Structures are given as C-alpha cells and as structure tokens.
C-alpha cells in the first residue's frame, strides 16, 4: 500500500531530511585557520593516547635472523644537522639526574658492565622506510635499576651531544627491548650512528631513538618533549 501526499508536503518533508545533515557542516571547522591548529593537535593527542593504551609492556617487537639483516653499509644515517658532533670519547660520561637515588656521571664501562643484549630488530622511520639492524647494548630498565630510578615517574628524558633531545614514557623505557645501545652489527657504534651511546627502541619510530646521548633524567614533568615532537610530530609514536 503506497501512502499519498501532495507536492508541498513532500517538499517540506524533503527539506527536513536535508536539514538533518547539517552536523556534517561541523567538519568545516577544520577549514577555519584559527580552529585548525587546536583541532589537529587534539586529534594527534587522541591518537597518542590511543597509542599509549595499545602499548603492551610484555609484547615483543619481531626479531630477525642474521640473514635478514640489512647490510650495515645500507643502514641509513639520519642526523638532523651534523653527522658527527665531535664527542671526546676519553672524557665522555652519561650524566644522570632527576628522580634517582644515585645521580652523577656514569662512564661507558659502568654501563657496559650490565648484562649485554643483542637484538636484530626493525628500525622504522617516520618517513616510511625501514631496515632490519643488529643492535647491542644494555636494557634501559637494567640501567634505571642500577641508578635507583623512581620507575613510578612518568618520563625519562635524554639530551644529546648534537643538541637533539628526546623523552620516553616510562612504560616504553622499561620495555625489555629498549636498549642503551653501544654496538651495531657487533662493532662499537660508529660516530655517524651516535657513538658512544644511543637509544635502540624497536617499539618506537626512528626519531625517538636519539643518538650521542649525554644526559638522562627521570622526571614527572616535561619542559619540552623532543626535537621533532616540539615541531608537530607525534609525542608517543609507538609502533
């Protein structure tokens, strides 16, 4: 049975149906310059929040056989300005501060005295390329235990010899594959790869894996997030 109406009523009914779609116009807020930045910041913030919720402390990144490794010569070198900030290895120390029981300057030998871990993991750049590399070092979690870090604090921050800086959420800092890395492919780190000490974090995108580390701090407050993050990149960017 078909119901009947007249053209005027139909026109009104159609208009009502059309007006129901007005919420779609709310998307136009993204086209307003004054609103665009805060909206995108909120959107990226939501993605970061979701990322931190998706992160599983015990879930390991895939590891690979030696035969899967990208040759060392083809492992890209991404520095944001210099490939060699001229670190003097003889006097280099890692300066530890913040919510730790034993702050101070740590020599490379003290770090290397911790149990050594070697892992073949995928290094993913925010640009989209990826390589499989071999990384050797000590677990950041072991080092944090050694310095008596308060692991209930929210962040571990890093400063670098080339003025790069980074921060890590504590959950990632304590992940078993997060390394203070002093070797690649079984050899001491080369200068362009961040000698003498860099981060290797297979659960994070490349720019979180700072090179040429000089300072480590355990903290609840971030004055700044990271070199790229402060320019608009994702703060968490967990893989």
């Amino acid at each position, binding site marked *: 049975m*078909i*119901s*009947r*109406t*007249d*053209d*005027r009523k*139909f026109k009104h*009914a*159609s*208009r009502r*149906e*059309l007006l*129901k*779609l007005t*919420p*779609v116009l709310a*998307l136009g807020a*993204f086209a307003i310059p004054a609103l665009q930045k805060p*909206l*995108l*910041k*909120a*959107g*990226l913030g*939501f*993605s970061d929040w979701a*990322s931190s919720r*998706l*992160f*599983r402390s015990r*879930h390991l*990144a*895939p590891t690979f056989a030696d035969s899967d490794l*990208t040759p060392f010569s*083809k492992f*890209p070198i991404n520095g944001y300005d210099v490939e060699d900030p001229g670190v003097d290895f003889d006097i280099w120390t890692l300066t530890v501060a913040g919510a730790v029981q034993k702050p101070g300057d740590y020599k490379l030998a003290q770090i290397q005295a911790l149990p050594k871990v070697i892992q073949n993991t*995928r290094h*993913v*750049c*925010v*640009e*989209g*390329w*990826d*390589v499989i590399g071999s990384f050797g070092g000590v677990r950041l979690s072991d080092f944090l235990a050694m310095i008596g870090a308060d692991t209930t604090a929210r962040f571990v921050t890093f400063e670098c010899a080339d003025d790069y800086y980074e921060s890590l959420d504590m959950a990632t800092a304590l992940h078993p594959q997060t390394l203070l890395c002093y070797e690649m492919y079984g050899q001491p780190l080369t200068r362009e790869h961040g000698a003498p000490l860099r981060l290797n974090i*297979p*659960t994070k995108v490349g720019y979180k894996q700072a090179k040429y580390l000089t300072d480590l701090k355990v903290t609840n407050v971030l004055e700044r997030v990271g070199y*790229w993050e402060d*320019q*608009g*990149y*994702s703060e968490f960017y*967990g*893989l």
Partner: protein
Amino acid sequence: MSTQAIAIENTKTGEVTEAVYEHPFVVRLCHWVNAVALFVMVGSGLQIFRAFPSFGAKIPQKDLLNWPKSFAIGGWLGGALQWHLTFMWIYITTGLLYLGYQVFSGNYKQVLFVRRDLPGVWPMVRHYFFFGPKPPVTEAYNPLQKHAYTSAIGLGVLSALTGFAVWKPVQFSWLAWMMGGFHWARLWHFMIMWAILAFVFGHLVMVVLHGWNNFVSMLTGWKKDPEYSSK
C-alpha cells in the same frame, strides 16, 4: 527488499509522481562525513608518501612517483600526519557506524552483493560499456552497483586494516605479518587507496550520468520518479 514508497500529487495539475525512500538518515550522514574524511585521508596520505616516495630499501632511493605537493594536504610530513592521524578516527567511526546500522537495520540487503546477483552483472556491464540493451531495473541497486558498493566497503575495511599495520607494526605484528610484513603493508595500503580512488571516479561518473533526482536522494533520502516500480 521493499523500499518505502509514496505517491505525490501535484496540487495544481493533479499529476501523480512516485518517490521512494532509498537512503536512511544514518547512511546519508555516514556517506557525506566519510566522503570528507576520505578526501582528507587521501590528500594527507599522499603528502606522507612524498616523504619517501618509494617502496623497499631506502638506499639507493629511487622515487617511484613524484607526486606534486599542490595535490596533497598538510604541507609537510608532520602536518600531513596530524591530518591523517586525526581524520582516521572520523573515517573509521563513520565506517563502523555505517556497517553497524546496515547490519542491525537489515538495510544491507539493498546493497550487499550476493550470489543471486551474479547472473545480472554481465548484462549491466554490456549495457554500460558495450552499448548492450538496458536490463530491466527492479530494485534500488542493480547487480553491478551492488558489486561496486560491496567491493568499496570491502576496500574501506582493508584500507583501515592495512593502515593499522603500517601505524602499529609491533602491537599489531600479526596483522603486518598477514600482509607480508611492514614493507608490504605499506604497499597494500597505497594500492588500496588507488583502488578506492578508481571506485570514486566511477561513482562520480555514474552520479553525473544518472542526474539530479538520483543525486538528491543522497541528500534527502527520497528519490523522485525512480526507474523501478515499487509495486
């Protein structure tokens, strides 16, 4: 599938035309929000692609495609990621809302391509591409349309799944593994975008060919003077 139909009487001439309610509100809402989201996802995705316009090894870097910046959204990689990681939630939300509505309302029967639609595909292809006779229209969507829309929904789901594999290749390592690894997930994600764009192109051509009444139906839900009779 019976669609709600109505007879409209012209108050001046007494002429009676028919209209059918083809697109429920939720479907129309999802359609338009998703259209905007898809536009932003493609535009920002192409800007992200520009950061490494290739697949495989970084060195030697061979650009697969030099995509112009003016046909991309975000201006730079960081900006494009902000757009992409914001609108992906809108894209996924409208997709899930659409799928949920279709399933629970039963409206999916109007558009889902099933086995009995199979014999009707070739006559429609013949009509559209080889000047064959026009098969009789009996429902809102012909078999070829059902095939196109069902495929598009499938591609939408795949675009989200491949996207998650690229975004979270560690947390969703099984998903990336199913696609052949991170490398392949990125390539699939890219290819699925082109497949969706091919659908969009065909869709827009058909919208133009089928005229105003057909277009209005996605705005008001009502299609005046449909090609098929409602009985």
